[in-house]
């Protein structure tokens, strides 16, 4: 079975803090994705990556950056957290394009 893990289930940070969300997949998938999920807005793509050290902007990249130094790990970085970044963050991976994305359990981030 595909397993995607995220470093924290719940996280509380203060405005202005730098926040790291970590995601690891164990299936040697090429593609990895970061989404945020908000009530009424569904899943929105922040960033994705095709391969190590490669990244592409999604639909809402502002205020975020990512890092993919190893194939199995994809990190989402909030350089200076703001209250409007309070959300559920979901990581996903897929073998390649046109393939199913498998999701992690999510990180509920609250920025105070």
């Amino acid at each position: 079975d595909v397993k995607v893990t995220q470093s924290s289930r719940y996280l509380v940070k203060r405005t202005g803090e730098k926040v790291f969300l970590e995601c690891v997949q164990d299936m040697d998938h090429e593609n990895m994705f970061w989404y945020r999920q908000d009530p009424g807005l569904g899943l929105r793509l922040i960033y994705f990556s095709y391969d190590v050290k490669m990244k592409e902007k999604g639909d809402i990249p502002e205020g975020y950056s990512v890092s993919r130094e190893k194939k199995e790990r994809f990190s989402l970085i909030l350089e200076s957290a703001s209250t409007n970044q309070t959300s559920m963050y979901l990581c996903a991976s897929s073998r390649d394009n046109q393939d199913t994305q498998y999701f992690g359990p999510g990180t509920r981030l609250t920025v105070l």
Partner: protein
Amino acid sequence: GESVGLHLPTLSVQEGDNSIINCAYSNSASDYFIWYKQESGKGPQFIIDIRSNMDKRQGQRVTVLLNKTVKHLSLQIAATQPGDSAVYFCAENRRNTDKLIFGTGTRLQVFP
């Protein structure tokens, strides 16, 4: 529990009945479709997928139907159980793109 979406369409069914959840997609260039299940506080879980060269695909207690003429997708759950209670949403992958487009979801409530 945490809500993944407010004011979602809701389908209420009695335990043991069959459920049908519908999804309309907008882009005729989409050629791959996925159904996900999301329980409260968890990440989306893959249920079943279908490619555009098929009209129907069956899994364990689930069937997905694809009608390309009217751009409609449905998920049928046989003998619905309390554990099926969740938000269900479809996703479409447009040909030659890397991104999934997600629907906003339908909440399925199962009553004893």
